[in-house]
């Protein structure tokens, strides 16, 4: 609010012409000051503008750098994905190799069993020793607890057990080689296997000599010499493994050959002794 005292008084202006001039000068000075302020502000704004002008290209450079970095990130991301894919491929290959290694190891172990069994079967020409070796293979390699090994007596058509393991030999009575499960195996020459070992436990401890759970014919080509009949496996033997079938196949052929060779050798030795006796008798 303007002080009433500051208001120029017409009387005074009329009275004092200098006062009017002073007033005008004062207004002029104020105008000048205002113009100066405007000019300063103008200058400041121009400086600021110039400053912003200088900064703008730097900002553009930053944008460019960011763009480059983003592209680099994208490239690295693609590279990372490629590496991840390669890593996954290598990992899968590793797993494959590990599985193959396990398979080969198993195969080696199976071959070891088969090699030892085969080696031992042909290591002797003694009939009893051959039977003992077959027993050891069936007992220790296959894991059978109750089994018998028998030969076919062709003339009366009988299956005659020669040795029994895990049960009394008397139980392993002579049975017909023309009927029943064993008869069927001896006739066809095809081995018989129970569907699963677990089912065997349900049968209990009763032994039916005519009903083995595994029956392997002992054959040389088409000639059936006898059979290995398994009635019970060891408790820890839960199922038949691949190697068991391999061993059964091996036993079917090699055990038969070993038995046949041993019998032939025993017979020839006996005949040789007889002939030698006759020669000694004639020459003496």
């Amino acid at each position, binding site marked *: 609010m303007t002080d009433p005292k500051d208001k120029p008084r017409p009387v005074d202006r009329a009275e004092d012409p200098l006062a009017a001039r002073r007033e005008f000068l004062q207004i002029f000075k104020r105008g000048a000051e205002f113009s100066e302020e405007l000019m300063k502000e103008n200058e400041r704004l121009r400086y600021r503008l110039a400053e912003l002008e200088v900064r703008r290209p730097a900002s553009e450079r930053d944008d460019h750098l960011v763009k480059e970095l983003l592209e680099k990130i994208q490239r690295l991301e693609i590279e990372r994905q490629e590496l991840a894919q390669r890593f996954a491929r290598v990992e899968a290959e590793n797993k494959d190799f590990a599985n193959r290694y396990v398979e080969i190891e198993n195969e*080696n172990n199976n071959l070891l069993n088969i090699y030892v069994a085969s080696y031992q079967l042909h290591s002797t020409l003694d009939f009893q020793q051959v039977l003992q070796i077959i027993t050891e293979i069936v007992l220790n390699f296959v894991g059978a607890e109750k089994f018998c090994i028998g030969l076919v007596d062709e003339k009366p058509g009988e299956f005659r057990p020669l040795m029994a393991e895990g049960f009394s030999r008397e139980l392993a009575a002579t049975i017909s080689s023309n009927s029943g499960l064993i008869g069927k195996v001896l006739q066809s020459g095809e081995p018989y296997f129970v569907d699963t070992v677990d089912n065997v436990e349900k049968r209990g401890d009763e032994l039916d000599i005519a009903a083995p759970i595994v029956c392997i014919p002992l054959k040389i080509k088409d000639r059936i010499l006898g059979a290995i009949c398994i009635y019970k496996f060891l408790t820890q033997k839960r199922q038949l493994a691949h190697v068991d079938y391999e061993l059964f196949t091996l036993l079917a052929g090699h055990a038969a050959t070993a038995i046949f060779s041993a019998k032939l050798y025993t017979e020839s030795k006996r005949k040789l002794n007889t002939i030698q006796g006759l020669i000694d008798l004639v020459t003496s």
Partner: protein
Amino acid sequence: MAEYMALVVEDSPTMRQLIVFALKRLPTLRVTEAEDGLDALKKLQGAKFDILITDINMPMMDGLKLVSVVRNDATHKDIPIVIITTEGAQEDRQRALALGANAYITKPIQAPQVINTVKELLKLA
């Protein structure tokens, strides 16, 4: 490379050969065979063995007697002993472990079982 000596005691030639072939896959192991407990004791007198693998049912001297004798012998009392048993012979197994056997393998024997047990007892990689 350090060499270890193993003594395999088994009366069955078939089983013995299987165990020996399995152990031969360990390159640092040298294997000696014995047919029964008495044969094993003779061989133990002539050499220093790092591990003993024995069957239980054997003629002349069985595996249980062998474990007992070895554990009471000052030279071999610390030798790791592995026994081979059948599942049915649980009493034999417990008796052998009580006598001082370190581990057991049940029949039917598979080569990896033998190898892994021996590796574990000899602390082989």
